[in-house]
């Protein structure tokens, strides 16, 4: 279908959707010019809030290429800092705001941005999208943890708006033509927010597109090496970009803090930015003026719904919570189809070691044996944590083929698990039916395949955002449907397999380990199959894949369906673990799913042992917190995902891969690892690569070594290395 027709279809669908929803949910309020003007006036300050939040996102993305989930958290941190500097009570320092404001926005925030760039972000250059995204997710958690450590959350803090709370522009009518029943005050604080958003939109647009520095910043994102060749100082520009991004985040945090009613906790400020994703995408993450338009559309839609529509029962969450997500979904569908990505000269990748099925079977047998021993020493909460950790490992495993091998970034793994849990609860889980587990997987598969269709249009970040929107819709809309969970919790039983009940925690834990092992073996077998190689080809270059005859549609459909199926099965086991499924979708929320992806990235997104690591990582945090009752641990466990980000920077391919590479040469059956280590040793002992072909000729061995270093082929014949 051509772009034009598909867009037309989306537009018609959207209009139909709006009309049908309006008809069904019409509250009966009279539509007059006055009431419409009120909607507009109500929407303006909210649009300002969304625009301000989204502006920082867009600027950082435009100038660094990184979509920063932590943008709201950074703003929250600086709002706390601003409070610390300005407030005259509770141990704060009572500086005048005319000193504190520029100090925070123009000095401290940019300095923090530079530190962030040098410490973390610079190391993300050339890394995969999922690594970049998850590093910012880790940063989000770390900042929340840091704020909790530094500022006692029991104290109510106020950041006052500029020029007070009750002064501003009293609106009585629109040019005297349309009169309001009651005047509405637009406070100076809100006017400043609206104007700041507009000024930022225009100013940054000019800066980024009309100034040499701005163009250079965008050029560095587009092609760092090429920009450097033309004289752009990439490192300096990167630092400047983050300084600018943090400065805008601080400005947004300080301006928006009064709207959140005080800084008792930074949660509201941190999460506000997520609602503004839709506005950012309207501007395609590039156009700041369009971001403001998007913010206005979103705010108008919300206020229209607030003023004229009623949502109750199963649709209760649509009005506020789901609306930004619905808009994000629609906007993403309207984006032009992504062109085929042609390969660039990328950073050399170390060839992946792909385990054989036999090795995996042995490894999984060993895992089961170890767990069978460990479980004998577990009881109570520790045992429960292990069960939960292994269930999470299965969720993470579902993402390995999709993200790790096919390169399709999905943030909806836990959402599919939630659907699986629901299916299990509805179709036999109340008496532990094994068929219900199977159905959980099977029903999730076509839903996953449906998500593959947007994946044909969208790539990279947009696809990730689409899956995030899907996860939010599952959370806010799916769970509360009568055909899903409805209004009350559903209790489920653990598996009853031909009369064998897995009611005890120990037997259930071993069952989950066994299921993980079987699925892991299956996934590895898939990786070593022709389909697995197609997935890798798809990840490396869709264009090349298409050229050699790989059916992109079919491959994506299958991998999305497969991933959703595994996640659905994981969901069934999570339901058995929790023994209840809630209509609020608790435990399956979109934001709860992000740490699962983060843990997988830390472990290694392209290997099944990375999934196991993800499960163990999450259970490790639980064990630390539940077994050591020190207040310090509470803070450390909040900071842990953020601290773990540092390991991602050190080893983007994953901690498990790094550990594996270190230990593999010592394993008797890993002759290949010993050869690799010897080659590496020999290569590093050689003269510098730069001399190759200049002062001394390439040998066949050199060529093969370079090929391997570039990851050109996974099956290059070994070169006998002297001394190996």
């Amino acid at each position, binding site marked *: 279908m051509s772009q034009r027709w598909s867009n037309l279809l989306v537009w018609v669908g959207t209009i139909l959707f709006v009309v049908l929803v309006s008809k069904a949910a019409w509250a009966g309020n009279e539509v007059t010019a006055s009431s419409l003007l009120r909607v507009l006036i109500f929407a303006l300050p909210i649009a300002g809030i969304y625009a301000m939040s989204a502006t920082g996102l867009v600027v950082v993305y435009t100038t660094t290429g990184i979509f920063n989930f932590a943008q709201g958290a950074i703003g929250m941190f600086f709002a706390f800092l601003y409070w610390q500097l300005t407030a005259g009570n509770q141990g704060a320092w009572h500086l005048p705001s005319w000193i504190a404001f520029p100090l925070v926005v123009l000095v401290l925030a940019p300095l923090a941005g530079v530190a962030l760039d040098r410490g973390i972000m610079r190391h993300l250059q050339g890394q995969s999208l999922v690594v970049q995204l998850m590093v910012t997710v880790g940063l989000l958690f770390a900042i929340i943890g840091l704020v909790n450590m530094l500022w006692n959350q029991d*104290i109510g803090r106020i950041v006052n708006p500029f020029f007070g709370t009750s002064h501003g522009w009293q609106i009585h009518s629109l040019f005297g033509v349309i009169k309001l029943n009651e005047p509405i*005050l637009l406070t100076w604080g809100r006017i400043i927010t609206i104007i700041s958003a507009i000024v930022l939109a225009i100013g940054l647009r000019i800066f980024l597109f009309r100034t040499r520095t701005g163009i250079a910043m965008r050029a560095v994102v587009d092609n760092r090496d090429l920009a450097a060749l033309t004289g752009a100082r990439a490192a300096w520009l990167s630092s400047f970009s983050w300084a600018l991004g943090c400065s805008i985040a601080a400005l947004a945090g300080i301006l928006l803090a009064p709207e959140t009613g*005080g800084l008792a906790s930074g949660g509201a400020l941190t999460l506000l930015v997520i609602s503004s994703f839709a506005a950012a995408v309207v501007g395609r993450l590039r156009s700041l003026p369009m971001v403001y338009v998007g913010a206005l559309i979103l705010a108008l839609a919300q206020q229209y719904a607030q003023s004229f529509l*009623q*949502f109750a029962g199963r649709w209760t969450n649509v*009005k506020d919570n789901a609306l930004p997500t619905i808009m994000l979904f629609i906007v993403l569908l309207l984006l032009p189809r992504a062109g085929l990505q042609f390969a660039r000269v990328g950073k050399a990748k170390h060839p992946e070691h792909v385990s054989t099925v036999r090795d995996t079977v042995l490894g999984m047998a060993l895992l089961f044996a170890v767990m069978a021993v460990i479980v004998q020493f577990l009881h109570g909460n520790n045992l429960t944590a292990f069960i939960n950790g292994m269930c999470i490992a299965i969720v993470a495993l579902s993402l390995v083929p999709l993200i790790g091998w096919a390169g399709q970034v999905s943030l909806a793994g836990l959402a599919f698990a939630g659907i699986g849990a629901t299916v299990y609860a509805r179709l036999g889980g109340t008496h532990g039916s094994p068929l219900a587990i199977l159905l959980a997987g099977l029903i999730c598969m076509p839903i996953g395949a449906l998500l593959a269709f947007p994946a044909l249009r969208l790539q990279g970040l947009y696809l990730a955002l689409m899956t995030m929107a899907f996860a939010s819709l599952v*959370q806010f809309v799916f769970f509360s449907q009568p055909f899903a969970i409805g209004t009350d*919790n559903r209790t489920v039983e653990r598996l009853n397999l031909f009369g064998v009940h897995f009611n005890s925690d120990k037997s259930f834990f071993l069952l989950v380990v066994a299921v993980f092992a079987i699925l892991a073996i299956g996934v590895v077998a898939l990786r070593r199959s022709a389909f697995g190689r197609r997935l890798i080809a798809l990840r490396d270059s869709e264009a090349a894949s298409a050229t050699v005859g790989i059916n992109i549609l079919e491959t994506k459909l299958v991998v999305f369906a497969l991933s959703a199926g595994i996640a659905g099965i994981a969901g069934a086991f999570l339901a058995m673990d929790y023994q209840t499924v809630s209509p609020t979708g*608790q435990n399956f929320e979109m934001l709860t799913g992000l740490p699962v992806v983060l843990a997988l990235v830390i472990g290694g997104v392209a290997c099944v042992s990375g999934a196991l690591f993800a499960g163990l990582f999450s259970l490790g945090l639980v064990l630390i917190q539940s077994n050591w009752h020190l207040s310090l641990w509470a803070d450390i466990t909040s900071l842990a995902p953020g601290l773990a980000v540092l390991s991602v920077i050190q080893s983007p391919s994953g901690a498990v891969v790094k550990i594996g590479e270190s230990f593999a040469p010592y394993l008797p059956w890993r002759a290949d690892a010993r050869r690799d280590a010897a080659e590496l040793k020999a290569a590093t002992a050689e003269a510098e690569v730069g001399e190759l072909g200049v002062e001394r000729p390439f040998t066949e061995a050199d060529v093969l070594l370079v090929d391997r270093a570039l990851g050109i082929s996974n099956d290059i014949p070994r070169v006998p290395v002297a001394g190996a």
Partner: protein
Amino acid sequence: MRLRWFAIAVSLVLVAGACGSGKSSSSANNGGGLGGSTAATAGTRPASCSTAKLTSPETGVSPTSITVTVVADVGSPIKPGLFQGSMDAVKAWANYINDNGGLACRNVVVKTADSQLSAQDAQNAIVAACSNSMALVGTTALFFQDTGQLENCKDKAGANTGLPDIAELQTDPTQQCSKLSFAVLPTGSSCPYSGTGPRTFTVGQTQYDYYFKTFPGLKLHGVFTIPKDLPSTIASTMPIFRAENQMGISSDAEFGISGLATQADYTPLVAAIKQHNSNYARNGLDYSGTVLERKEAQAQGVTSVKVWDCSVQCYDKRLITTGGSATENQYVWLNILPMEDGAGANPELANFLKYDKKPDGFGEQAWVAGEAFAQAIKDTMAAHGGDPNSITRANLLTALNGMHSFNAGGMIPMEDFGSHKGSTCLVGLQVQNGKFVRIDPQQPGTFDCDNNKPPVTLTIDPIKEYHG
């Protein structure tokens, strides 16, 4: 996590649902009086303890100690320390008990379990408590949605007795209707309840009667704010609002507001107040929702509202510290003595303020939960000839079910604890000059029990009453 954040923001609405049920007290309760009500339970260890051969009759009970667990949402990164006050208060209560002779010739040991705003962690905490504690005391877990683990808990003899739960908060009908769970301040909701469909609610008239007397001739009509993020918060708010309608306070408009709403989101609500010239406004969200509504009302120049109404969820110092002048004249109604009464008003309150170094409203209710446990232990022993080895979970449950007159030494109004029926007696506070000031009744240590008006009983489907 986002949902949990919503839950935090609206959680205390569920406390607001604790609006009393059952019979109203026949006379104004002099909360300070220990005689005639359940007295403070601590005392010096009886002489018989020195001769008694103490055994370990129950899980969590050793010859030297009784272990209880307090399960509370504390360690969530998004809202750290939410119910830390509950944990601290149960520990403080245990110190108070131990300083005064202990219980059943034993010291009280408190284990803490952080449920972290998670159903799973709440379940884990119950599983752990089943194996090491005699009972749960001061439970403050917002996602305590499944009582299966509570009910399947076996006692030391292997019987399916269950784990007694003396809860500070009951958020879910499952917990509210569990025979093992006793709320310090029960909601006025009928049991059993399937979770869907009509339910009968009982709402006291005390605070409304005060308004009618304070503003004679004024026909109250106003704007109601419903916390809309969770079905449980809608379900606990709508009955109160419908009861108010029955009492004569009509709805000008009703708004469903999210716990993540910004102040700007309150502009339409405040515009409705201005449009209808409303003289009454009630916000069902937690204190921060009230702060946002009041600030927006102040900004928009609302002057018509005579009664800004709120329940116990607004009894938070942050209502004043973050609300500032905007929250002046805010009414707040409690079913427990306010800490502002001071140590002189009630000996039990004095003990609480002495032992709890960081007292707060949650802590106060958790302390009352501790006192209910102590009373039940005392009753158990009394029923078994003073035998300190009679304290089993089964006997504790029998004692809890038999506590029909309990007031924690006057810290709460007299209530039928064993029948899960609260009281309609309340204390009215108003924010005046940046402080909570007692306005009804003005005598510290007492409650207004509104003798003349029976509570309103209504049967509604609370979810269907909400129209978004």
